[in-house]
């Protein structure tokens, strides 16, 4: 299967239209790993249609949050002398796929004539990579939040040490026991210490 899809003749040309370079890289990597070698990423939305016509892809993948989806609608105009693409949402027989792609936030346009069984694995891959990107972003957000919380705790510790003459360890234990007693997070207690010290300045 892998060898078959690697052959130049049968590896479809895939264009990724995405302004997020990280997400596009994740998707591109996934496609290449699966043997789809002919992948082009477009990140610049100006003259988008001219670039797509120039590349003449078999499949176009675009994120649903990209306003340029409307630009792609021009490809469906009858007078255009290019290969006619069809939109992914046209095949409503596969409701589960449509739901999965909307949830993941990805949409695809496929040149008419490409067989359904060849498109399905590509779309599934796009959906799973888009989901992987969302997960990564959530993790990044969480890490960022955790870092910020640590900064707040460190500053609150400093205030307690100075005002109450505590060691670092004692200051931390005091915040932790207060948090447990008040059923709050230690970050929240630290934030209240910072707020209070601002007010009392």
């Amino acid at each position, binding site marked *: 299967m892998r060898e078959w899809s690697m052959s130049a003749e049968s590896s479809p040309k895939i264009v990724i239209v995405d302004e997020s370079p990280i997400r596009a890289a994740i998707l591109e990597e996934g496609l290449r790993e699966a043997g789809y070698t002919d992948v082009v990423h477009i990140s610049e*939305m*100006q*003259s988008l*249609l001219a670039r797509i016509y120039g590349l003449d892809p078999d499949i176009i993948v675009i994120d*649903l*949050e*990209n*306003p*340029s*989806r*409307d*630009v*792609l*609608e*021009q490809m*469906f*105009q*009858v*007078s255009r002398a290019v290969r006619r693409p069809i*939109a992914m*949402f*046209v095949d*409503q027989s596969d*409701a589960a796929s*449509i739901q999965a792609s*909307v949830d993941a936030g990805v*949409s695809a346009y496929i040149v008419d004539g490409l067989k359904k069984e060849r498109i399905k694995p590509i779309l599934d891959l796009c959906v799973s990579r888009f989901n992987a990107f969302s997960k990564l972003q959530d993790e990044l957000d969480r890490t960022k939040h955790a870092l910020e919380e640590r900064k707040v705790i460190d500053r609150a510790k400093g205030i307690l040490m100075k005002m109450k003459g505590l060691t670092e360890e004692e200051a931390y234990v005091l915040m932790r026991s207060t948090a447990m007693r008040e059923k709050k997070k230690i970050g929240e207690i630290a934030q209240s210490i910072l707020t209070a010290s601002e007010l009392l300045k």
Partner: protein
Amino acid sequence: MTGPLRIGFIPLVDAAALIVAVDKGFAATEGLDVTLVREVSWSNVRDKLNIGLFDAAHLLAPVAIASHLGLGHVKVPIAAPFNLGLNGNAITVSPALHAALMEEIDGDRFDPMATSRALSRVVAKRRKSGAEPLTFGMTFPFSTHNYQLRFWMAAGGVDPDEDVQLVVLPPPYMVDSLANGHVDAFCVGAPWNSIAVDLGIGHILHFVADILLSAVEKVLALRQSWSDKHPDVVAALLRAHLRAAEFIEEPENRPEVAHILAQPERIGVDASVIQRTLDGRLKIAPDGTMRESRRYLLVGREAAARPDPAQAAWLYAQMVRWGQAPFRPEALKAAMAVFRPDLYDAALGRSVGTPNPIGAFAGPAFDPNDVPGHLAAFKIGRWRP
């Protein structure tokens, strides 16, 4: 009365009735629990309505008709029982094109025939000097903006497919594209024309009301199957929208309306720009020149909200004129059946007013009973009898 409803919209001033119906509590008074979902493209709005992720949507009137006829995309029967707005678009041109047009103009600068002929002369001059053809931005292949631009320029002798380039641009990109010379002009709804003028990079050449007296713009679109199944919900939704439209049209409510629409999760632009649009009092040139028109945007005034099947027929005629659809009498009938004054009247319990004629500045008065005869009167177009 019903489960929660999800309604998609694009952040434009003509989503006003929809947004005010929800944010001012008119929908809740009717027992409706509505969540508004802001979208980034008409394709998204159309697709999410089609596959049932939205129960209703703020939609370009021609997209509703194209969906119903299966033009360019999957065929999904649509019911449009409420006009969210009439008119509201404008044609904005770059300072360079504006200067070129004013140099060529022979007549009143607000007369679309005079500007269209001036455009024809500018186009001819550019061709002679070997300059690139002018590029015009519009929002969607099946859009009022596309047809209004084409109608205007063709009247003065410019063939929109041969003499200039028309390109689809998402509204948020319009202003940047005009600033960096990617397009020379565009036709778009509020607030984008005013934003270009405020930035000093555009002149509003025409309000759409100069070109067409009354032109349906956005409709509240429902899947026909859903609408048939939930007549009470539809009636409640329409009553809420009508109350919102009436509220918006009261001049003393305008500051409050502009404030509601300006919220970041709604339209997200300055309230003063929105109010100028609603009041029909627009700055049209970077030097501060103002222009007023009571017909700039109509939300519910003059029976504007009641769907008029003749408007649907006019839009279908434009699709035929520009080669997007073949002429078929049964397709014309189907297009007209998208617009549902019957649902509107049923919700209100009465029938109101007579619709204004379309009132185009060029060509014969539109007759929905003779679309081929009407189209035969226009020299430029892709359709031939």
